[in-house]
């Protein structure tokens, strides 16, 4: 089963590289198909979970190897902009919904800070793009994405803690 699964993942991602497509989407389609159209999906998920950690670490090593680290003011600007947009995208909707649309949400206004971490999927997007289109622009994209993800990953525990405290306080009130 493990061989079968690993083989299919490599085959599908290989096919996408072969035809200059994004492997992430094709693998996602494979996952959706497997989960919904086969009878083995109950076995599949625990198996995927058991292989996730070693594969994830290998993936992170690959990301590190792919990343040509450099730093200049343009990169700093882009990273700053990315983080700012991410903060805004997660913090602003809550007051927007509550105040302007009068949406009945019983959550603290900075609850969106809990969602700052982008996890593996953000990295996967960046690497997928870099592998599918090895251009100077995608090198820059990878650097911006990785710096941005690193910083948000460092900040996200603080964000989660803050929103939990706030929630706790409001519940006590």
């Amino acid at each position, binding site marked *: 089963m*493990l*061989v079968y699964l690993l083989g299919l993942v490599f085959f599908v991602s290989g*096919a996408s590289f072969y035809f200059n497509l994004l492997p992430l989407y094709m693998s996602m389609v494979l996952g959706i198909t497997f989960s919904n159209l086969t009878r083995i999906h109950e076995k599949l998920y625990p198996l995927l979970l058991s292989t996730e950690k070693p594969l994830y670490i290998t993936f992170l090593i690959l990301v590190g190897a792919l990343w040509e680290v450099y730093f200049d003011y343009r990169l700093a600007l882009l990273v700053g902009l990315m983080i700012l947009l991410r903060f805004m995208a997660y913090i602003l909707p809550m007051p927007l919904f509550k105040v302007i649309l009068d949406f009945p949400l019983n959550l603290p206004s900075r609850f969106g800070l809990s969602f700052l971490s982008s996890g593996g999927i953000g990295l996967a997007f960046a690497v997928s793009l870099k592998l599918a289109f090895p251009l100077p622009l995608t090198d820059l994209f990878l650097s911006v994405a990785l710096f941005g993800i690193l910083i948000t990953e460092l900040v996200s525990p603080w964000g989660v803690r803050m929103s939990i405290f706030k929630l706790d306080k409001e519940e006590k009130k």
Partner: protein
Amino acid sequence: MIPLLLIFVLMLILKSSILLPFANPDQSTSIALGFILVFAYLFGSHLKRLSLPLITGFILAGILCGPYVLKFITPSDVQDLDLLDGLALSLIALTAGGEMNIQRLKGRFKSISAIVFFQTVIVLLGFVLLGFFGRSFISFLEEGTLLQVFAFSLLLGTLSTPTSPATTIAIITETKASGKYTDLVLGSAVVKDFFVIVIFAFSLSISKSVAMPSHGFDLSFLLQILEEVGGSILIGLFIGGGIILYLKYIKRDVTIFILSVAFFSYQISHNYGYHPLLICLIAGFLAENFSAQGKRLISAIEKSSIPIYVVFFALSGASLNLGALRQTWLLALICVVWRGVLKFSGTFFGARITQEEAGVQKWAWAGFISQAGVALGMAIVVEHNFPEWGDEFMALVLAVIAINQIIGPIFLQRLLFKVKEAGKKP
């Protein structure tokens, strides 16, 4: 059968000329890996129903999809997947080392030593004889001097001596075999591999001095080999020590740790010319015998052994040189049969002298037929040192390895079933 046909047809379509204008042929490694994993596994499972070993199925699938038949896997794909191949070899060697339990092998040490000794001596002498009598079949030896024939035969004999520990351990794991025959075959294969590397250094130096007298007896190669072997043992001890400490104090994420160890061993051997097989054998041996957690290491590797074996053996099948087999099949077949006869004689005498039971004397030889990595590595060194023997020598050696690697696993599997040791491992 349907999934097998499905993946095959899919690959056929993907590699067809209709889709070629939309494809990027430089990016075919991952698709080749995925295809070989699924196809070889399914193919092996089907062959298993015919009572053939899984790894024979993997090897045959590799041959079928490789550069000489369907061309689904190109030589550059095989080269690109070298890292995975090396990783798999390191993991197999770790398992082999872990299977060498001193307590269990203590009572068999005499028999293993005798079998290794007699097999080595008889195979070497036998191939020297074959060289003298069969020189008229080999074009570059027809007009050679007796000393040149001796040099050639000695090297061919040395190359024919080893048994593939990787194949042996794969079959033992697959059949879950345990017992006297299993210990004798695995123990002898591992010990012989170690000695053959040293014997090869001597043979090469002797052959060079007799075939090319101007060179004299060259000790530098021998020293280089000794340095490589010594270095590999030291690195293996160091890695083994690391494994013991990790298993004792950290214990977590053993799979990731083992993968890192295999990768580290491969890189060290790849970059500095050490022997990955020897490094991991020593490390596995140390972890098994000098740590209470050795069993955990082996069971962690064995749990994920099937993907390792699929990659390793399918790729070894894909790299088998069928062109060479086509060129020299008759001579290769003679060498294979002769090697089998000599292996039988060596095992028979070794077992008889140490008063092993009649079954061991008669049947244990069947466990020593497989031949792969070490022989191939030595053949490349010989080709480099004796360019005048050219392609013909390499073609012969590759053809012999190809046949032995296909039939060897079948012989060993049959042996383990015959002596009722298959399925005995808890």
